[in-house]
Each structure stands twice: as structure tokens, then as C-alpha cells.
């Protein structure tokens, strides 16, 4: 395929190195060992990026991280093979990560992030070339039109802390092509056109990359299930399946030992082992005898993960809600939702409890209490809440500091350590993990609530 060809020795005028777009599977021969090894190397990069994101690293830190990870893992002794390794490893991992919705989501998100940072580091010549390869037919804004819009464009630039360079180039693009720029109001839009600055072009390209990969993953899944898995059952399939299970890519949130908790213990257990986000929801529920939808989902699924049976869950929620809306309304309006969460209604999907990443990125509004307190609470409220949890004033300052610097999960980890008086090396990635770690510590100290 053409990309591979152009990567061979730079002969004649300097060949512009480009990032492969993984449009179609390469017709390359690869040794079976490399099949696995290349994939593992790339997986290290992806996992590293995923970790960086959950730790709330800022964009410039991520940029450094990505280039370090890439340099450390994706090199090859033969320089002309570097791009091949890139391409092959990507396609192998597609096989591994195409198989469920959750895997696809994770892979898509991390590969897109990887692409974004690699793209940003390229020169504008290379960027323009890549844009052309994506067949983005967007024209640069002509002078006359530009003069007419200059004021507004300048206003937008200033609103995001930038200024309009004197030789600014803008692209005119349908607004739906750049959703993230529109969402954050980083572009001027008029009559459905978004005016995108050169330095924002990344967004255009990344959106294309993402949408293409998303479709490709679904197709790969179909091909895998319908023919490849069977055909390769002696050769590639075992490798692919081993890669999937030996490596914990996305957050697998189902607790490994399924211990039930009973209703009579729930208040006690909430105080001792719930992470702050769930404690807050729990307390608000006890206080107001109500929670809005976002809160019901976040807390409800957490409780399911913690071992609350459907019957107990119905009793629990009913006992609270009926005090506000009455038992009849509860049965009519809320019971269905709880049963839905347990996979007993509708699509019958057994929904998994939300991970920290999902909770952190939620957007609680008026009357809501879900979300991540380390992110969504004001500092005073956070202090008060931590104080109530019994976090000592010294540890509290550390926690607040982490939260202030947007390291929400680290803040939660420090809280865990302060409350339990022991270290938590793995860090907090999931509220249910916080809970089970807490329970095991308490059990070992002989104070458990089974």
C-alpha cells in the first residue's frame, strides 16, 4: 500500500514522514512471533496513555508522555521496519479490541488520543498533507471574507486566551465536522459554517480518524466472529485471545468475589467503605428521600456491584423514596428503572457500575449530587465532606492539593489511605474497587461487616 512504499529509504527530495492512517489492512508478511510482540509493545503505549489520562495529566504532560512511550516501545532495529511495526501492531490490536462495545470504546479513545498527539507534533506541511489524505475538501477562507469576519474571529481568539496572528489562515468547515470545537465555543460559527484556525485543524483531522476507526472496528468484529476466529483457531486466535485476557486494558468493573451485603448493614458499610462520591449520594438520599436520575444511576449501579441483590435494592430505594413520593408512585415510576439496571427489563443488559473516568467526566446540574466530589465540589464543600469522613487535617491538605491540580483519582486514593491508615498502591480507578479494597482491609483487621 502506498503509505508503506513512501517510507522506504528517503531518496531524492526529502520524503515527508507521515503518520499511517490505518485505512486498510496492509499486504505485508509478518512472522508469527512479531505478530504477538509488536502488539504487546503497542499495548504498553496504549495502556500508558490510558493511565496518564486517568491521572488527569495536563496536555503538555501528555504530549511528553506520548512521545516517551512511543520512543521506548515502538522502535525497531531495522529503521525501515518502524512504520511496518506501527501498522501491524495497530491491526493486530484491532482484532483483540473489536470484540465488545466496551473494548471498542476504550481502544477507539486511546488510539485517537495517540493519533492526536502524534499529529500535533508534526510540521504544518505534514499536517496539510495528512488533511489532504483524509480528503477534507475544506477551502481556506479568502481575503475578502476574512476581512469581513476579522473582528469576530479576533473576539473568539481572545475569548480562549489567544490572539489572531497577522497572517492567519482559516478554514471554513460545516460545523458538524468539528463538534469538539463547537462544544467548547472555540470557533466562530455563522450560518452553519465554522471558521477553524490553522492550529485547530487537529480537531478536524482527529474527528475523521476517529470516525473511520470506529466504523472499521465494527466491521472487524463482524469479520472476526463470522470467519477469522474459526479459520485461525490453530494459529492467530489463541494469540489474540491471550492478548485480551492477559492484559487489563479497560476497567473491568465486575468485582471478582461476589459477596452480598445486606440492608441492615448498609449504613454502617457506607460510613466505613464507600468512596466519597457514593457516600455523598447515599447521605443525600437518606436526607432528601430522593435522588435525580444521574444520582440513581451512579449509586444504584455501584450498590449492585457491591453485592446488593435486586430484591434488596427495591426494598432499599422504596423505603427512601416512598417517604417523599409514596409507595404507589415509587412502584409506577422508579421500580422499573431499578429492575432495568439489573438487566430485568428492556434490552436486558446487565449494566456495569461506572468507573472513575466515567464519573469524573459527568456533568451534574442543578439538583444533582452525582459526579466526582474531587472535581465537582467547591473547595469548601470538599473540605467539609472530607472532615466528616474523618480525614486528618494534614492529609486533608494533600488531598485538596491533588484535587486542585485536577488529580482527582489521586485525591481519592489519598483519602482512602488516610481513612484506612494503610497505603493503596494500585490507586483508585473504580468506586467498587475502593469498596472491595476497603472491605478486605477491614476484614483483615477483624472489623469486617460481611
Amino acid at each position: 500500500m502506498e503509505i508503506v512504499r513512501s517510507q522506504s529509504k528517503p531518496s531524492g527530495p526529502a520524503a515527508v514522514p507521515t503518520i499511517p492512517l490505518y485505512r486498510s489492512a496492509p499486504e505485508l508478511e509478518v512472522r508469527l512471533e512479531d505478530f504477538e510482540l509488536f502488539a504487546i509493545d503497542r499495548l504498553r503505549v496504549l495502556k500508558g496513555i490510558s493511565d496518564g489520562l486517568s491521572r488527569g495529566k495536563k496536555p503538555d504532560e501528555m504530549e511528553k508522555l506520548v512521545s516517551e512511550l512511543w520512543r521506548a516501545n515502538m522502535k525497531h532495529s531495522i529503521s525501515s521496519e518502524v512504520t511496518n511495526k506501527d501498522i501491524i501492531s495497530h491491526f493486530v490490536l484491532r482484532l483483540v479490541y473489536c470484540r465488545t462495545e466496551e473494548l471498542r470504546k476504550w481502544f477507539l479513545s486511546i488510539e485517537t488520543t495517540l493519533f492526536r498527539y502524534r499529529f500535533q507534533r508534526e510540521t504544518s506541511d505534514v499536517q496539510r498533507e495528512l488533511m489532504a489524505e483524509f480528503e477534507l475538501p475544506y477551502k481556506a477562507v479568502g481575503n475578502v471574507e476574512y476581512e469581513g469576519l476579522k473582528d469576530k474571529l479576533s473576539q473568539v481568539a481572545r475569548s480562549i486566551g489567544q490572539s489572531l496572528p497577522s497572517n492567519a489562515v482559516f478554514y471554513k468547515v460545516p460545523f458538524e465536522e468539528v463538534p469538539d470545537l463547537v462544544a467548547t465555543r472555540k470557533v466562530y460559527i455563522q450560518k452553519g459554517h465554522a471558521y477553524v484556525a490553522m492550529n485547530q485543524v487537529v480537531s478536524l483531522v482527529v474527528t475523521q480518524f476517529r470516525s473511520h476507526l470506529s466504523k472499521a472496528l465494527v466491521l472487524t468484529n463482524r469479520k472476526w466472529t463470522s470467519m477469522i476466529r474459526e479459520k485461525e483457531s490453530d494459529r492467530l486466535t489463541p494469540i489474540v485471545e491471550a492478548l485480551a485476557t492477559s492484559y487489563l486494558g479497560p476497567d473491568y468493573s465486575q468485582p471478582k468475589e461476589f459477596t452480598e451485603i445486606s440492608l441492615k448493614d448498609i449504613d454502617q458499610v457506607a460510613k466505613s467503605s464507600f468512596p466519597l462520591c457514593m457516600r455523598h449520594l447515599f447521605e443525600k438520599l437518606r436526607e432528601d428521600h430522593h435522588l435525580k436520575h444521574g444520582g440513581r444511576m451512579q449509586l444504584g449501579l455501584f450498590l449492585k456491584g457491591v453485592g446488593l441483590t435486586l430484591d434488596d435494592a427495591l426494598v432499599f430505594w422504596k423505603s427512601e423514596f416512598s417517604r417523599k413520593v409514596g409507595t404507589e408512585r415509587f412502584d409506577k415510576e422508579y421500580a422499573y428503572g431499578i429492575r432495568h439496571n439489573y438487566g430485568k427489563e428492556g434490552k436486558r443488559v446487565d449494566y456495569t457500575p461506572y468507573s472513575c473516568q466515567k464519573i469524573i467526566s459527568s456533568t451534574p446540574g442543578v439538583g444533582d449530587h452525582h459526579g466526582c466530589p474531587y472535581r465537582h465540589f467547591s473547595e469548601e464543600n470538599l473540605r467539609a465532606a472530607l472532615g466528616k469522613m474523618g480525614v486528618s487535617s494534614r492529609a486533608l491538605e494533600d488531598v485538596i492539593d491533588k484535587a486542585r491540580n485536577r488529580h482527582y483519582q489521586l485525591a481519592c486514593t489519598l483519602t482512602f489511605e488516610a481513612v484506612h491508615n494503610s497505603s493503596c498502591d494500585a490507586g483508585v480507578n473504580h468506586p467498587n474497587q475502593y469498596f472491595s479494597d476497603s472491605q478486605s482491609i477491614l476484614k483483615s483487621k477483624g472489623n469486617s461487616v460481611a
Partner: protein
Amino acid sequence: MPGEEEIGRDDMIIDQLQSDFTPINALPDEFNPNYLKLYYGKLFPHADLFRWMSYGTDGKHTGCDQSFFGRREFSFTLDNDIYLRFQSFNSASDMENAIKEKCPFKIDIGAVYSVDPAKRHAYAQAGDNVFTPVERELVFDIDMTDYDDVRYCCSGADVCLDCWPLMTIAIKVLDTSLRDDFGFNHILWVFSGRRGVHCWVCDAKARRLNNEQRAAVADYFRVYKGNENSHRKVSLMGQALHPFLARSYTNVLKDFFERKLLSSQQLLSEERYEKILDMIPDEGITSDLRGKWQDNRRSSMGKEDINIFRWDQLKHLLQSGKQKAPGLRRCVEEIVFSYAYPRIDMEVSKHMNHLLKAPFCVHPKTGRVCVPIDPDRCEEFDPTTVPTLSKLLGEINMGLRTEGDNEWDATSLGQSVRYFRSSFLQPLLKSCKEEIESSYIAKKAQSRNSLSW
């Protein structure tokens, strides 16, 4: 049916309203299936709903997709809270008969799916989700309860003419932006029947937006973030405001805030000004203002509303040009945005499969019809005088006849249906017809070209 408590205002006005309201609220059987049955029999604009939902595909043109209407999901909420999802109909008469027969308390409109919703199970077996939404209007839902922390006249389900301007603001800001910024033309605003408004953007481009793109539009409109747990909920950093926000402030928010909300909500009264002072991150200024305001407790400045007087003092201090601190730069705007800027329900807009109540339904709790609102005249809209089911049926009983065969023409509903047709439906269908024709021509040209080799 819980009686609607009237909001506390001037005594005189309460009495007047009470006499307007009493006949409606006093009848416990005001909203009942029989009234509703008559409504669906004589007044509900079935044919117009069908024509709208068909988007021109009910025409004779060869390019028309005959399956289009049948792939739309409707849902019915029946008496006893029985909820029927995935209803679909193959023709106008099918839909009309179903509505008349089932007499739903609420009709919701969902998405157009890849296959007939009633037959979705047949396709689910194929494994990879072939039952999926393919088109759906871009919709917005603005509900007064989302403003409960900034309105004092009512709370919860109540709505009055003091807080309704918040909806007027929302319509003006969003309608302008949807047209000028996003280039949409076919926009329908509808009264939700009790305490809010819905917006339906029906351009073809809007209908084809995916979830991510819808979320982007909703985020573009979002300013207010947070709740009682977080601190400052409106944060307008940056050297300048985005042109959309600046225009909204200058053309709509500022005036409404200063000329209506400040006084009708008594925002700077004794009991309430602390909340605004809380938004100013400068102790010096807040204590200065507090001092001033405790001094002039008794309105000694004659006729001027004390809220307006205090607001002027506040603006003077914050905008005097001596303020360089970044947190203060836009404090005045932030306060205005907090109290007035539209608050949309993000979840409603983000998902293609989200169901939304159909226009011309009757709200079971108020008996009012969900009538369209003309955005160009939204300042005149009064939620307390929207026709109710019993009023309309009374008008029918009076037996006024019109030339047309439309019963609604002789009632207060006539105005709404006529507006719906002339200002929304006709222009929309005209543009749909043009689109069907031109895409048909384009397809033919394409197939001709591809054969030519």
C-alpha cells in the same frame, strides 16, 4: 389532581387570577378520558402531524421513500400510567385511529429508525444492531424547575408571569443562535403545557446529526454548570466573550435582567442580596456594598425600585475600570448569566432516541394544550391564558360554524393550528419537496455516470 397553588403576589392581582382560574381548577374531572376523546375526535390536528412527520415522503414523486413515516417511533402514555413504546403506523389513518382508540394522555415522538419499530425484534436476531435511529429532529427542552435556585415567585410545578420571562429569554437566545449561527430555518417552539418550552429543529441537516454532534450543539449553548455542591456556576474567563455570548448578553439578557427580573424577583432585597454578593470574589467590594445597602434599607430614593438602585451601585463598583483582577473582570455579566441565561436539559438533546412530547397534546395536570409559540412574538406569550381542554370543548358546544371542515377553526385552537401550518409546516414541506427532487436528480445522474464506462 392536585390543585395548583396560586403564587403570592399583589393582592389585587391574586383575586383577579383566582376568578380566572377557579372554574378550571375546581372541577376534579376537568381532565378525563371523555374530554380527551372528544379532543382527539374533533380538534387534534392528526393530518398536520402526519404531514409533518412525513417530511414530504407522502408525495407522489418517485424519489419518495414510502417507508419513511412507518419507521418513526411514537409512544403512548395511557390512563393508569401504562406506557407503550415503539408504536409505529403505516399511514395517516392508522395513526389517527390508534390515537382515537387508545386515547393516550400523552403522545411522544421518537426517532425514525432503520426499520419499522414495531418489527424491531425481527432484526435484533441478526446480531449487530441493525435496529438503530437514522433521523431525528434536533430538540431542546427547557423546564422552569431548572431555574428553581434563581426564582423566588414560584417553585416546582408552578409558573407565573414573573418567572415566565426566563422562558422568553431562552427562546430569544436559542432561536437567534440556531438561525444565525447554525444556519437552521425550520424551527418549531412549543409550550410544554405547564412550565416550560420545547424546541424542534427540523432541517434535514439537523435530523441527520449524530449523538456527538447534538451534544456539541447542546454544549455550545451551555453556560451554567454546577449545583449546590459546587461554587461559582458561571465562569466567563478570557479577555473577551465569545460573540454568541456577547450578543446574547447585549441583545437579550441585560435588558431582561435589569428591566424585569431584578424587580419582579426582588433580587437585591434584604433577604436575597447575599446570594448575589456571594458571586463577587472580592471581600472589599462586598463589604462596601453591604454597608451601603444596610444604610439605605428604607427606600429613600423615591420612586425608583430599590433593586435597580442597588444594582446600579454594584455595577458602578465592579465596572469602574479600576478593577483589574481577572475574577472581577466579568463579574457583572456572570451574575446576569447566572440568573437569566437559558438552562437546557442536556440529556434530551444529546440522544437521537430520546422521546419528546408531541405538540398539541393536552397536559394532564393543567388541561392546557401544548400550543406552538411564535419566537418573533414570544414576549406576548402568556402561559396562563393558553386554551384548556374544557374551554375548547365549551367553545365547540357553542356551535359556531366556519366554512372549512375543521372544527378547530371555530375555537381558540384555530389560531395555533393556522400558525403551525403557515409559519412552520408549509415552508418545511416546500423545502423537503425541493430536497427530494434534487437528490433524486443527483442519484439518477450518478447512476448514469457509473454506467457510462
